[in-house]
Structure formats: structure tokens, C-alpha cells
């Protein structure tokens, strides 16, 4: 336990000192501010570009558009950036040999993996919370009258999918030696999830539905309960992957 806390502290310190924390927070903050702004300004920008004589009728921007931007940015750029930033989570320490010294000081391997997952989870949570908070406040300011439904639940789904993806990333990092291998495996896992979605029956339980269905959620065209299966499976798989990462890392030759 002391090893876990000490190592977790070191991890957070590391992300702060190597500016990764800053990059993550700045990018998510920028997303948070621009989401409602883009939604508000896009029709006007497009309108000004249109030549005389042609009229395009644009629907008036709503809070729904702002949240569309939020989910698009957070799931695409946001998750990709997060995964890339964390891809060296283990490989850099193993290839440089920084971890070996600490392991020979009696730091348990379980603590290493758990601390690394905790740190990634904390950073992801902070980033998404920041992005959500900024979008929420700004959207409320720009579109005070509009209401969207199921917002907390759909953000929770996004967050959970991030946690699931980080578990996949961690397991990939334990299985492969390089950060590229780690990225490749994580990407393959996402592709596999997308492929599974081809089977209609699997859709309800596929973790990727957590991020593909949320537009329906805030539009209230998809029932919250239809995603419970996916929430359960994503949670279970994340737990399984982290446990597997621990078990494999414990027996890994370093």
C-alpha cells in the first residue's frame, strides 16, 4: 500500500513535470470553451460565406448543437489524444530501465500497474470534468432556454468508455514492449468493437455503444435503459483487463 501511494505520487508528479498533464488539460479546456462557441457561430460563418443570390436556410443553433460538438470532440480528438499521451505508460519505463531499480527496492508489481491505472483514470476524469464543466457553463450562457435530456448519464457513458479504453491500453502495454505496439493493440481493440457492432444483437452489450449512442440519448430517442448492458459489460471488461494486466505483469521477465 505504501508502495502504491508512493508510486502514484510519482506518476502524477511525472505527468506534471513532463507537461503531459498541462497538454491534456489545455486541450480539453479549449474543447470545452469552443464547443458552444462553434455551435453558435457556425451558422453565421456559413451564412457570411454564401454568395449573393443563393439563400441557405440554416436551422437556428441550439444547446443540442453545442453538446454534439462536445461529444464529437471528446470522443474523437479527446480520446485519441489521451491514448497517444498514455501509450508510453509502461514501455518508456521498461525500455529505459527506470522501473527495474524501483522493483528491486521491493515495490510490488501489482502496485505499479494499479498506480498507473489510477493515475490515468484520475487524469482522464479531470480532463473530461473540465471539458464538461466549461461546455456546460458556456452553453448555459449562450443558449439559456434550451434543455437537453440525459446529459449526466451520457457524460458518464463517455467517461466509462474512456476508462474501458485505458484498461485496454494498459493491458496492451503489458503485452507489448513498445509504445507503438501498445497503440496498435488499442486501435485493434476499438476496431474489434466496431466490427462486433455489425451483429445487431451484440449492439446492446458492446462497450462502443456508450460513445456511438449518446447523441440519441441527449435527443431522447434512445432509452437510458437500453445502454445498461453496455455499461455493465464495459465495467466488467475494464476490471478484467486491469486484473489481467496485473497478473501478466507479475510474471513478466524484465
Amino acid at each position, binding site marked *: 500500500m*505504501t*508502495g502504491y*501511494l*508512493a*508510486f502514484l*505520487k*510519482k506518476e502524477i*508528479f*511525472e505527468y506534471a*513535470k*513532463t507537461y503531459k498533464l498541462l497538454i491534456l488539460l489545455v486541450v480539453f479546456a479549449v474543447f470545452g470553451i469552443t464547443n458552444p462557441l462553434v455551435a453558435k457561430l457556425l451558422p453565421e460563418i456559413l451564412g457570411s460565406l454564401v454568395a449573393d443570390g443563393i439563400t441557405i436556410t440554416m436551422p437556428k443553433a441550439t444547446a443540442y448543437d453545442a453538446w454534439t460538438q462536445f461529444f464529437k470532440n471528446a470522443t474523437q480528438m479527446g480520446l485519441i489524444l489521451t491514448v497517444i499521451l498514455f501509450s508510453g505508460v509502461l514501455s518508456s519505463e521498461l525500455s*529505459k*530501465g*527506470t522501473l*527495474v*531499480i*524501483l*522493483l*528491486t*527496492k*521491493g*515495490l*510490488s*508489481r*501489482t502496485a505499479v500497474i494499479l498506480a498507473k491505472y489510477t493515475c490515468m483514470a484520475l487524469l482522464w476524469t479531470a480532463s473530461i470534468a473540465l471539458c464538461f464543466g466549461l461546455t456546460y457553463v458556456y452553453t448555459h450562457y449562450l443558449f439559456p432556454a434550451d434543455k437537453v435530456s440525459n446529459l449526466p448519464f451520457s457524460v458518464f457513458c463517455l467517461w466509462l468508455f474512456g476508462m474501458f479504453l485505458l484498461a485496454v491500453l494498459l493491458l496492451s502495454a503489458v503485452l507489448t514492449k513498445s509504445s507503438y505496439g501498445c497503440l496498435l493493440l488499442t486501435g485493434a481493440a476499438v476496431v474489434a468493437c466496431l466490427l462486433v457492432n455489425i451483429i445487431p444483437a451484440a449492439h446492446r452489450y458492446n462497450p462502443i455503444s456508450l460513445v456511438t449512442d449518446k447523441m440519441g440519448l441527449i435527443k431522447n430517442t434512445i432509452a437510458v435503459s437500453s445502454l445498461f448492458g453496455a455499461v455493465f459489460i464495459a465495467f466488467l471488461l475494464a476490471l478484467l483487463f486491469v486484473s489481467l494486466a496485473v497478473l501478466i505483469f*507479475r*510474471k*513478466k*521477465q*524484465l
Partner: protein
Amino acid sequence: MGILEINQLHKRFGQHEVLKGLEMDVPEHSIFGLVGQNGAGKTTTMKIILGLLKPDSGSVTVCGEKVAYGETKTNRHIGFLPDVPEFYGYMTAREYLKLCGEITGLSQTKTKVRSEELLELVGLKNEKKRIGSFSRGMKQRLGIAQALLNEPKLLICDEPTSSLDPIGRKEILDILLAAKGKTTVLFSTHILSDVERICDRIAVLHGGKLALYGTLAEVKQRHRYNGFVLEFENVETAAIFAKSKELQHPSISTTRSGNTVTVLLTGCDLDGHFFLDVLAQKRIVPLKFVALEPTLESLFLEVVQ
């Protein structure tokens, strides 16, 4: 009982069998030099002791406890310095030692006191820079400091002096020598002069086994050549001695270069007295009469060939 015991250790990487039944025993409070060519299995042996590699068969005990592969409790007795120690470049030496202290479970005050002591010992006391800007020698010294932090019973150093300049090497060896009273040191090297300078015990690893093992004096004694070097005043006297009838014996081989004659005895009960008698008969007084001492280098080459 030794602080480190290795029994019948086997390890193979693919087709290549690195360790073939290694047996070793490191007694407490010794400085133990593990010598071998590159690829002889020194690092492999150390990694198995630390539970970082899984042996194919055999066992290792540290302080009477068996080493388990993967998560091993025995590491709390051990301080380890890898061949090229790498640290978190964004930390200072003090921050790094603080982290090490937290991981080993030392109290904060204890860590602070020990850190200052050790930084003094390794000469990094006034270093405020981040580790990222440290030179190789400084990293090596910080490596020793972190290895000694929790006062380990066994200090394992993997080629601590290779790739250092002569001054850096001397400093590292002095630090290891200073640590001797408090801990047992096992270090691997292929620099034989380092072994002669600080080790009291030596083991030569060759062909996956120990080819030579014992205290430095023992090993030299065991491999003493039965031979002498005689130096004479001039070439003529040397020639007279070398060509004398008495030395034309099947078990004596004589070689002369200039005024120096080397005589080697093989498989007979002749000894130094014999040559002294010959010298007395010829009424020759040599300038020098020295028994041949094996050097570590000659021993090493003999064993490795």
C-alpha cells in the same frame, strides 16, 4: 551460511544455454567479484537473484529466504545497481532518494538523514540539478546511493565501473570498499584490475558454470606455477646457466631472453633448492631469483580457454 546461495541454476534463452548448473556461495561481509567474458551470464545471474528473470531450474536463497520469481520479498535485503542506471530525468537526486525511501517504507526523517549521508558519501551533496543533466559517472554514483539507502545486507552491482573514466572508476571502487563493513558486495566486472583492488573473493563464470572460485589468495595459491624467473648480471652468465647439463631434464623447460631465464617445472618433485644448488655449483649469483606468481589475467585466460 552464506548471505547468498545459488544451487544448480539453469537458464536458457532459446537455443542458447547461458547457465548450466551454476553453484555459488557468497559469505557475509565479503566483496565478491564475479568475473566473466561478455555474455558469460553475469547479468542473467544477477537478474535471477533479483527475481526479474525466471530460472529454468535451480534455486537461489538470499539471507536464508528463497527467491521467488516475479514478486519477491527477498529484494528487501538487496540493493541493486544496474549496469547503466536510469532514473527519472525530471527529478533531483534528493527527490529520487525520497521516492526510494517511500517505496521501501523508510520513515521520512530516516530517509532524509540517510539521503544526506549517502549524497555526502557519493559526492553529490551540493548537486541541485535535475538527474536529466547528470553525467554517466554522476548517475553511477547516485545509483550506489539509492542502492545503499535501505541499508541492504547484500549490494549487487552490475559492472559498476565499465564505461567510466579512470577517476570515476577509482571513486566508485572506493565507495564500494567503504561500504564493505556494513554490507556484502557482489559485483560483476570484466576489468580484472578492479577485482584485484577491492575484492576478497572471486568467481570466474565460464561456460555457464564457475570455472574458478575462492578467495583471491586461495585462487592464486591453487594455480601457482611451479617455476622461477632468474635474472643475471649479463647475457653470458645467463647462457651458462640456461645451458648447464643439470637443467637438461625432461621435466624442466628453460627459456632465455637476454639476461633473464625462466624455468618451469612440470610433474616432478624438484623445487627451488634444485636451482639454488645448480647456481652454487656454478658459483653464479643471480641478480634476482623470483618464484613465478600467477596474475589474475593469466589465470582468467587459462580458465577461459
